[in-house]
């Protein structure tokens, strides 16, 4: 019940296309859902986060869509660029933020082809 399932495992998108990564969770007590971007040899960097009281949050080219009834959330990267090529992790936490432990998905390796 503490798992976060992420798909796909890998994704290839053409430059300018839309990248979509999906996550699903079981524990309805989770109330903070961040997405992290990780480049090789680096630590994860927070991209965008959402709470379950909203269905969508947009920051620049990055959008989170949240479906509370389906217990699913997704990351959309609009106008994908080669510089977006990285591994993306969804996560979930209790207690309203990352001051509690984060439960991470298994990651999606995104390759944006020029």
């Amino acid at each position, binding site marked *: 019940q503490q798992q976060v399932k992420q798909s796909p495992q890998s994704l290839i998108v053409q430059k300018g296309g839309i990248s979509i990564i999906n996550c699903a969770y079981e524990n309805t007590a989770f109330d*903070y859902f*961040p997405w992290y971007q990780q480049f090789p040899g680096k*630590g*994860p960097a*927070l991209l965008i986060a959402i709470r379950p009281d909203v269905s969508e949050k947009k920051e620049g080219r990055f959008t989170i869509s949240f479906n509370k009834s389906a217990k699913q959330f997704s990351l959309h990267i609009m106008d994908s660029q080669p510089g977006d090529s990285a591994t993306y992790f969804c996560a979930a936490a209790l207690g309203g933020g*990352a*001051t509690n*432990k984060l439960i*991470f998905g298994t*990651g999606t390796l995104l390759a944006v082809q020029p």
Partner: protein
Amino acid sequence: DAGVTQSPTHLIKTRGQQVTLRCSPKSGHDTVSWYQQALGQGPQFIFQYYEEEERQRGNFPDRFSGHQFPNYSSELNVNALLLGDSALYLCASSLFTEAFFGQGTRLTVV
């Protein structure tokens, strides 16, 4: 403002040895969490420190221990190293909601 800094960046240890990893949190952050990231996997929560006390712990054996100092910096200690402990160890600091990660320490156990 320096972000989260970890040392060393890389480390090679022999099975059975002990290792200490260090983390300096982002300025003003009072909570430090440690995560283990195996190759090709998502980070797994080890434990979290707040006010020099372990506040939460993940599903890791007692060989993993930690400490937080009055200046909020933290150490992760692993005893009796196993080959399976080879991973990227990440430190994250937080104040309210967001967690900021360091670049990690790559530990290789041979």
